[in-house]
C-alpha cells in the first residue's frame, strides 16, 4: 500500500511544485513602453497587496479600494480618455517577493504604475528600483518617516500620513486630554521609541509629566508584568503604542486587571482601529487614538465615496485602509489628468506640488519629498449601533497637515 501510495504522492507533490514554480509571465506580455501615452490607450496599474499572512485582509481591502476607484473612473469615461486596467499580483509582504512581482508586472505585463503595496520595508525596497523600472509607485499604507526622508525617491509618492505626522497630531491634542501624570507603554521597536520621544516632548510643552516609561518586545502576548507596574505607578493617564495582536492582548489583559478604572485617559497610537473593533469590543469605549481618515467628514466628495462604497459593500462603510488606497488612486488619476498623459515621467512632473480636492479635503503633493499634505485626527471610541462591532469614532481634534508634516528632510534628494 505504502509502495503504491508513495509514487502517487510524489507525482502530486511534484505537480504542485511545478504549478507553484511555473512562471505566469506567459499569461500577458502586452503593453509596451510608450503605449500608455497614446490618447484612448489603456493605462495599466499593478496592485501588489499581500495575499497571505497576517496582513492579507488589509491587502484585500486595499486592492478592493483601487478596483472601486478604477471602476468609478472607467464608468465616467476613463481618466483623460484613458481606460484604467488593474493587474493584480500576489506577495507574502516580503520585500523580495514584492520586488519580483513588480518586475514581472512592469516588464512583462506593461504596468507603469504600482499601488496597494503594504509594508514600509516593501516600499523601501521597491522605491529603490522604480527609476530602473520606469514606473511610479503610490503608497497608501507605508508610514515610515524615511520613505519621504533620507530614502525618498523621485518615482515614489506617499499618500498616507507619515508616523511623525500622526504623532504630531496626537501631540497637538495632548493639552486637551485629562491627566497630568502620564505613563508610556510602548512596543520595543522603532515606532514605539519614536512615538514615545515625540510624546515626551509634547507632554513637556503641555505641562504634563511622564512618570513611567516601559517597552515590551514586539510579539509580546503576556502583559501581566507591565500592567502590574502601570497599576503600581502614580500615573493618572496612559499613552500606549501596542498594535495588532499585541494591542488586542494588551487591551484584553488591561480590562481583566481593571486598568481602565485607574486612568483618566488612555491614549493609543495605532492601537485601536476599525478592523480590531470586533476583537476589542466595549473594552475600548472611551479610548483615544490617532486617526488618519474621518469617515463622517461632510466633504461632498467623501460623502459620495462613503455612500457609493456602502451601497456596493452591503452597507459597510470604508475605513482607513480603504480610504487611503482610494486616495492613492485618486492622486494617480489627478496626475494623469494634469499631465493629460499616461506617461510616468509626465505624470511624475505633473504631480510635483499638485493641489486637488479629494475625499479628505484639499490636499497637496509636496514637491520636495512627495509627501501628500493632509489632515490627521484624534478620535475617541464611542458606541455606534451602525459601526463595526457596535463601535465608532468621535473626532475630538483635527490637525492641519501643513502643521503636522515635518519640514522636508534635507537628506531627501529627489533628483
Amino acid at each position: 500500500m505504502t509502495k503504491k501510495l508513495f509514487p502517487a504522492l510524489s507525482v502530486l507533490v511534484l505537480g504542485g511544485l511545478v504549478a507553484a514554480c511555473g512562471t505566469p509571465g506567459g499569461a500577458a506580455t502586452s503593453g509596451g513602453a510608450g503605449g500608455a501615452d497614446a490618447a484612448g490607450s489603456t493605462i495599466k496599474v499593478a496592485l501588489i497587496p499581500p495575499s497571505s499572512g497576517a496582513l492579507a485582509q488589509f491587502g484585500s481591502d486595499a486592492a478592493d479600494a483601487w478596483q472601486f476607484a478604477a471602476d468609478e473612473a472607467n464608468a465616467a469615461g476613463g481618466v483623460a480618455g484613458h481606460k484604467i486596467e488593474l493587474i493584480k499580483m500576489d506577495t507574502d509582504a516580503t520585500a523580495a517577493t514584492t520586488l519580483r512581482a513588480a518586475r514581472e508586472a512592469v516588464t512583462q505585463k506593461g504596468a507603469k504604475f504600482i499601488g496597494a503595496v503594504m509594508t514600509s520595508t516593501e516600499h523601501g525596497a521597491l522605491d529603490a528600483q522604480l527609476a530602473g523600472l520606469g514606473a511610479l509607485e503610490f503608497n497608501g499604507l507605508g508610514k515610515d518617516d524615511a520613505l519621504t526622508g533620507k530614502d525618498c525617491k523621485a518615482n515614489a509618492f506617499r499618500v498616507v500620513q507619515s508616523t511623525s505626522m500622526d504623532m504630531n497630531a496626537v501631540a497637538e491634542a495632548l493639552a486637551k486630554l485629562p491627566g497630568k501624570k502620564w505613563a508610556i507603554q510602548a512596543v520595543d521597536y522603532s515606532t514605539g521609541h519614536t512615538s514615545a520621544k515625540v510624546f515626551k516632548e509634547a507632554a513637556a510643552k503641555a505641562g504634563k509629566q511622564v512618570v513611567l516609561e516601559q517597552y515590551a518586545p514586539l510579539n509580546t502576548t503576556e502583559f501581566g508584568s507591565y500592567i502590574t507596574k502601570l497599576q503600581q505607578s502614580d500615573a493618572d493617564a496612559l499613552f500606549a503604542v501596542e498594535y495588532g495582536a499585541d494591542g488586542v492582548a494588551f487591551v484584553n489583559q488591561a480590562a481583566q486587571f481593571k486598568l481602565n478604572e485607574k486612568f483618566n485617559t488612555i491614549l493609543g497610537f495605532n492601537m485601536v482601529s476599525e478592523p480590531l473593533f470586533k476583537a476589542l469590543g466595549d473594552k475600548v469605549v472611551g479610548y483615544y487614538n490617532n486617526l488618519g481618515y474621518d469617515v463622517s467628514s461632510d466633504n461632498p466628495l467623501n460623502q459620495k465615496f462613503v455612500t457609493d462604497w456602502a451601497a456596493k459593500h452591503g452597507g459597510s462603510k470604508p475605513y482607513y485602509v480603504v480610504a487611503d488606497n482610494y486616495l492613492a488612486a485618486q492622486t494617480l488619476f489627478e496626475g494623469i489628468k494634469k499631465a493629460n498623459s499616461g506617461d510616468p515621467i509626465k505624470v511624475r512632473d505633473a504631480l510635483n506640488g499638485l493641489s486637488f480636492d479629494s475625499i479628505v479635503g484639499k490636499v497637496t503633493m509636496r514637491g520636495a519629498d512627495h509627501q501628500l499634505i493632509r489632515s490627521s485626527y484624534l478620535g475617541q471610541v464611542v458606541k455606534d449601533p451602525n459601526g463595526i462591532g457596535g463601535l465608532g469614532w468621535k473626532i475630538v481634534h483635527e490637525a492641519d497637515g501643513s502643521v503636522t508634516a515635518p519640514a522636508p528632510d534635507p537628506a531627501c534628494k529627489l533628483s
Partner: protein
Amino acid sequence: MNFAQVLNGIALGSLLMILSSGLAMIYGLRGVTNFAHGALYMAGAYVAYSVSTHINFWAALIAAPVVLAVLGAVLELVFFRRMQHRNHIEVGLVTFGAAMVIERVIVLIWGERTLSVDAPSGLGGTTSILGTDYPTYRLLIIGIALALAIGLVQWIRRSDVGLHIRAASHDVETSGILGINVDRVSLIVVCLGAALAGLSGALAAPYVSVYPAMGISILITVLIVVVIGGAGSIGGAMVAGMALGIIQTLGSVWIPSLSVLVPYVALVVVLLWRPTGLAGKRV
C-alpha cells in the same frame, strides 16, 4: 518584588506547564519533536473562540480538548505510526508541514484577523488575594493547571495505562516484547498530548489574543521548556514550565530590555549544569 508579579509568573508558568506536558508526553513515547504542537494550541484557541461565541466558554473548555484529541489521533495514525522507524529529522519535517497545513486551514475557516474571547461571566474582574487585587481568570488558569498537574502525575504513577506509558517511554521494543500494546499506548499519549495543547489554547484564548501566528510564537518557548525539563519527562516539563514562567516574568520586571533572552539563557545554564535536563531520564 511584589506578590502580584509573582502571581503573573505563576499564571504564565501554568499555561506553559499544560502546553509543554503534552509535547513532552509525545516526545517521550514516540521520540517525535512535534513541531505541530504550537499549531494544535492555536487550533484549540480557535475552536474555543467559536464554541464560546455560540454556546459558552465552559463548553469550549471541553470541546477544544476533544476536537484536538481527534486531530491527535489523525496525526498518530497517519504519520507517527507509519513513520516510527524513519529518522527524527524526517518525522520532524512532517510535523512542520502538518503545522503549516493546520495554520492554513485555520485561516481559511476563521480568516486572518485577530480575534478575542471574553473571560466567562463572573471571572472577568479581580479577586483580592492577601490584599492584592488579581484577575480572577488568571487564578482560574493557575487552579486548573495545578489540578491537572496533580491528576496527570497520579494517573501516570498509579494506573495501568500510566505504567505502560512509563515503560514504553523508557524502552518501546522491550515493552512490546513484554506484552504491552505499544500502538494503543501511543495513540492514548498522542491524543492526550494534543488534547492538552487544545486545552491550553482554550485557556489562553481570553488571556492572549487569538491569531494565526500565536502557535509559532509560543512553540520555541515550549520546546525550550521540554529540553530544560529533560526531553520526554512530563514531570520535568511541568516543573520547567512553571519555573520559566516565573523567571521570564521577573526578567521582564528587572531587566526588561533583555527579557526576550531569558528562556535561551535558562536553556544554556540548565544544559551546562545538567545536560539531560532537570529530570534526566525520569518520566
